[in-house]
């Protein structure tokens, strides 16, 4: 699971902190900090957090890049023309 929060949109309502306190937390009174790559055990809580966000600031997804591409770029080089 990969998480990113649009902190422009975030208004620090804290619903994510209530839903998944092991992933989202406040630093200071109004600043959200979070784990971008929470463990699989947190998946359900993170989904609840994303749904609970009043301003829809949380995007969830998976890895963008196949493992092979990161470990050996040449392995996935496309033919050029």
């Amino acid at each position, binding site marked *: 699971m990969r998480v990113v929060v649009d*902190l*422009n949109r975030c208004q620090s309502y804290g619903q994510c902190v209530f839903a998944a306190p092991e992933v989202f937390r406040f630093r200071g009174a109004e*600043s959200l900090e979070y784990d971008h790559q929470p463990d699989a055990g947190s998946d359900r809580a993170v989904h609840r957090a994303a749904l609970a966000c009043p301003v829809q600031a949380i995007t969830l*997804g998976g890895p963008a890049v196949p493992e092979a591409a990161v470990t050996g770029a040449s392995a996935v080089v496309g033919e050029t023309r």
Partner: protein
Amino acid sequence: MTPRRIVITGASLAGLRTADSLRANGFTGELVLIGDEPHEPYDRPPLSKAVLAGRSGTDRLALPSTRDLDARWLLGVAATGLDLDARAVRLADGRDVGFDGLVIATGSRSRPWPVPEEAALRGVHLLRGRDDADRIRAGLAAGPRRVLVIGGGFTGSEVASSCRDLGLPVTVVLRGGAPMAGALGEVVGAAIGARQRAHGIDLRTRTTVTALHGDAEGRLRRAWLSDGDELDVDLAVVALGSVGNTEWLAGSGLVADPRGVECDAAGRALDVDGAVVPDVYVAGDVARWRHPHFDAEPQALQHWGNAVEQAEVAAHNLTHRHRRTAAALPAFWSDQFGLNIKSAGLPQLADQVVLTQGSFEQGPFAAAYGRGGVTVGAVAVDSPRVMDGYAALITERAPFPPAVNATDSPATAVLGAGFGSTELSGPDLTAVHGGQS
């Protein structure tokens, strides 16, 4: 006609979001992403905050993709040339990658310390990528006697905050009259600077570093300042703004220089005659464009949200007949010294500022910025929920000073905003031309 192969140069936030958005728009052709870093796309804002303070590792910042991108990833290899006639991107290893559509999202890098021998001293760092952050983090963990931060923009201020989180003595040297004055003006910048000082920052305004000295092993030991002081420092972070990664476009016919690649509000690259280059788009930090809401020069908006919006606009325009333009109100945030700072609009265009809520001295506050009797920007400190209201005022071009009528509205005079100083451009504002008062 939808292109068959789209190449995206740059594999950070703007590049990834372009790819994600192309697939969301139904693009089924070939997708190639080219990135000079060997890492998969990651989020940069935490580098100066949670990473330096040791609360997060750089290996835990990967950005999500909301779908299977089915893309070819060329990571760890830079784009070094663009041939518009042949419709091909040249790579550092000599290969060419042909394209039908191209999105330029190569971002920007930190402006280096201008004296190469001093910049090469061990302990002198730039902060842009995760490898930089890992090096600085290791240096901070070694317990330096004092950290020197050169430049008082957002990056410099956040680095200073992280060092205080670690209990380290910090000196911040900045040419202008207040931290973040390039983005927020000297009035608001001074209010935030006072809070930085209250957190123990040795803040030297209107001061420059005149020399960095190392020992026989080439390790940083000492800094000379223009105020005559000498500091024993083991670690310095150079935070003097950024320059666009545009060298690879030299000779391509695009308008590209250290301020960015010129494009229109639809993200379409412009050639030296000002004409649109078909099927070539620009997105993110490297895009230099004229925001349709403001009467301002073309500028690069090095903001997270801007990268996302321009990526979505480029992806839309590559897959649809009807063009969209990027018109969302500019917005950015910073977290430092326990403060949440949010900005909307373009404060740097303003010649006047007014405190609209709270107090500059303590607690939350909000301020509005105006030019020619129109509200053009706002900043909110520790009050993120008021920002939507200010964004609406800016969007509707509300009269300045705006009627806020909040219960915590102070009776405060309109002040000169304090732009146009000698502050070196901050990292978020390298290409901005501020309004003249």
